[in-house]
């Protein structure tokens, strides 16, 4: 059984902290360190979105960082995969009621893999990134992504994300 799908490039990961409490971020960093060691799958953590295939997002989206997230996403070359780490990135989590929180990452960019947990455990994160690698391979060979359409369990705020993106661009 091959864990990482055959692909002509190792899936490189860029991490973006959207609106997170740091819990998922330090757990994701822990994935890269010797005990969990994501690099054994050829997965490298890079700082530049232009080098990356997989975008790992932690935390929910708010009015201020929606534009930054969209920027990071747009800079990545196609095909690309987005992995939403933790409940905040999936639905807004405990902060979904916040007056400036838009909700999950999928309000702004398309998400392929959702990883549950508060914070998600490193094992779950590794699984999420590897699932992302499979989606990446499917996208690369022109197939439809493997991830099923996710249904939000709650709708956090009625704010329309595109409107916020435009508003964010004006005071940049």
């Amino acid at each position, binding site marked *: 059984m091959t864990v990482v799908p055959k692909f002509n490039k190792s899936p490189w990961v860029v991490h*973006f902290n959207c609106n*997170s409490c*740091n819990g998922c971020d330090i*757990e994701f960093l822990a994935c890269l360190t010797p005990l969990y060691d994501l690099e054994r799958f050829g997965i490298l953590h890079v700082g530049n979105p232009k080098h990356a295939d997989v975008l790992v997002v932690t935390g*929910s989206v*708010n009015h201020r960082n929606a534009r930054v997230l969209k920027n990071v996403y747009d800079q990545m070359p196609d095909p690309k995969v987005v992995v939403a780490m933790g409940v905040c990135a999936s639905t807004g989590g405990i902060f979904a009621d*916040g007056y400036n929180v838009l909700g999950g990452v999928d309000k702004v960019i398309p998400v392929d893999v959702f990883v549950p947990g508060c914070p998600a455990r490193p094992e779950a994160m590794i699984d999420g990134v590897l699932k992302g690698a499979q989606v990446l391979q499917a996208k690369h060979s022109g197939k439809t992504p493997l991830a099923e359409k996710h249904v939000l369990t709650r709708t956090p705020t009625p704010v329309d994300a595109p409107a916020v993106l435009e508003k964010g661009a004006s005071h940049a």
Partner: protein
Amino acid sequence: MIRRNTIPFGPQHPVLPEPIQLHLVMENEKIIQALPAVGYIHRGLEKIAEKKDYIQDVYLAERICGICSFMHSQNYCQGIEELMKVQIPDRAKYLRVIWAETHRIHSHLLILGLLADAFGFENLFMRLWKVREQILNIMEKTTGARVILGVCAIGGVKRDITPELSEYILRELEAVEKQLPELMDSLLKDYSVKQRLIGVGVLPKDKAHELGAVGPVARASGLRMDLRETGYAAYGDLDFKMVVGEAGDCYDRTMVRVKELYTSLDLIRAALKRMPQGPISVAVKGSPPADEVLARIEQPRGELNFYIRGNGTRNLERFRVRTPTFANLPALLHQLTGCELADVPVIAICIDPCVSCTER
């Protein structure tokens, strides 16, 4: 010819996993002004806290920051207990100290690792984080979670440490302590590391006081400020010795953190030894009265303040958070002024910034 230009540092940058943004006004290679831009991870937490039940707020307070999560919930619980005049059992106080100090060790190892990464010593980063995993194992074994523990509750704690677990903790601490000298020597005695840290980002004692620095940043400048000396929780019964530096540069800040690792190890051992038998929590009934309280605690990064005001219902009237990184930001901006661009990551890491705390 002097050319002036502005370099945006962040919000997405590889130094820190957090989106802190600094506009650096440069004259050639020198920074003449640093302007912070915040709000990227503002979650409106204080307002959410007013909507939720005061018992649910324990979990919310825990998620102010994932790195020092236990201390946030501890501070919140201590505040509410003071407000509602609840006396918690002595054993709970000791258990709180044990988990708070394991959090301090993991937080200090984390930031020392990130510091090593910031000046390009990746091997040291990996090895420090490997040691950190053993501390996380202690937390997982005693509470069931690695980062956000969820064991602190109003009126005490939710889980006990059995004698077997206590022995396990002592064994693990022994193993951690054995590995520390080698790693800390690479941080404090290595020639290249010293070149990157000594004399960088100097914050003199009077300036540290004037700018209101807290925690290791203030202590490295020679200010004797550590709330653990006030003896909250069980610190009064344990022999706590404050670590103070003098030079106020990045090297001293690193040294203070390294020495605090050993202090925390000793505190956990002493707490495990002197912990009295008895219940671990008391039942709390009613609601916080219409009164106010200022709860303070020493976090890995410095003094953490919670202002809590009740109104006699189950919801709080106001919950205000002042975190240590917020207090240290003026000190950071002072240190950045006049430094070289290449030193920015090291100086920024050395105040141990926690942007999630700051922006809430």
